[in-house]
């Protein structure tokens, strides 16, 4: 069974860096309850001898040639960054 109570939901929110209102907590627990019922039905399918299917098409890992190609500049990549100072992404101080 997935999340069934507020404590496990709180832990999940913390791990995912998300906050919810009390009403959203209730909605989310209702969602999980419905999903748990669905998952129970799916669990009843016999898949013991079935191999997990990660890819739907026979695609093997693609390796590019080890050759220098054109890349984006730092300025281009930082153009949409929320806060940049001196070419670096700015975040709050971690160590006092």
């Amino acid at each position, binding site marked *: 069974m*997935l999340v069934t109570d507020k404590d496990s939901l709180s832990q999940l929110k913390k791990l*995912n*860096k998300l*906050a919810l209102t009390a009403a959203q907590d209730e909605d989310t627990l209702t969602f999980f309850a419905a999903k748990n019922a669905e998952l129970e039905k799916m669990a009843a399918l016999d898949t013991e001898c079935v191999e997990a*299917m990660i890819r739907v*098409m026979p695609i093997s890992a693609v390796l590019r040639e080890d050759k220098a190609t054109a890349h984006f500049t730092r300025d281009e990549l930082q153009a949409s960054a*929320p806060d940049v100072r001196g070419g670096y992404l700015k*975040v*709050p101080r971690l160590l006092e």
Partner: protein
Amino acid sequence: MKLYISKNKTVGASPVVLDDMILTADGTAAGSKMLNNYKSPFDATLTKSLSAAGYSVAGKANVGEFGIDLLGETSYFGAVTDKSGNLCLASAEIVRSGEAVAAVGLDVNGAQRRAAALAGLVYMKPTYGTVSRFGTVSVAASGECIGVMAKNVSECKAALAAVVGHDAADGTSLSEEACDRVKNGAVRLKKAAIIKNFTANVDDGTATRTEAARAALTAEGITVDEIDCDVLTHAKTAWGVLMCAELCSNLSRYDGVKYGHRSENYTTLDELYTNSRTEAFGELVKTAILYGSAVLSEGNYIQVYDKALRVRRVITEALARLHREYDVLIIPACSKSAYTLDNVAASKQLPFDEALYTAPASISGVPAAVAGGIQLIGAPFSENTLFEAAKIITGETE
């Protein structure tokens, strides 16, 4: 009501509209506050393919947040509704109005198929890996596909041909030979089957459209059987697990540091992450992240996520068995003939529940077309057969 996120001032011949999940240098938000004002440093590969084929991009269409909702209702820029208050996807409205000959979008959870069915348009989600996803906002990479919507079969087919092809920049792109089968595959249309497990709980309008499709195909000498295949109904649950797991992983990159929304309310790094994500993601996306995280957690990974991967194989093999006998499988694209904002407000489950109809093709990577308001599912690389069936159903003569 915002149909366009951006609209080009000068549009040439054959205008197409791109869902705002496809990166272009003029901005891509994926329906989310998180990516509002985000400017990509490059355009998606498919935009170049469209230009090379003579299409011009008319603009970017409003989409639901990260494309996982019912009909675009979770967009940060607002839902699109018609005069009756029924939800519609912006790209479908733009095509229906004639402002674009086709719409190209990322089919993550079937919104485009539902929209095409409700708007009476033609749509094709081709075989997985035959259209480049390089330069799309990745959500559920193992099943999401670029799809094409148009007013009729010939325009849909032409626009699809423009974007199908191998792309070395996309690690999931199939070979040029495989892509060529989408464009030039032989038509084999002798037997079709309506899968009864999907027609039991639909409204009268949907039932009528299914019967009309049967009648049209039968009139052309195609045998249409009614069959049971209960295992396909598990695709909804399995795709919900896989989609949310992949979404949770893909959306972990949005932390307010490198790009995207950053909260103004923080003092610590943890607050920066949490407040940025909490302010920017909508409720459905938050729920999907939490569900995805739960199914990937240590205690549930084998029991739930690995199980869903096994069910994916069961479903893919069941479809392959059916396609050995039937050239086209007929199931509705959604259960109702219209949806309102009240419908989606009443249940957070609705986009997941309606995936009952779209998940079999999403999870297995097989092509799925929409025509005459119903969905046609084919074997891999059988797009031309689906287009032929669509022509019969829509009564197109050319």
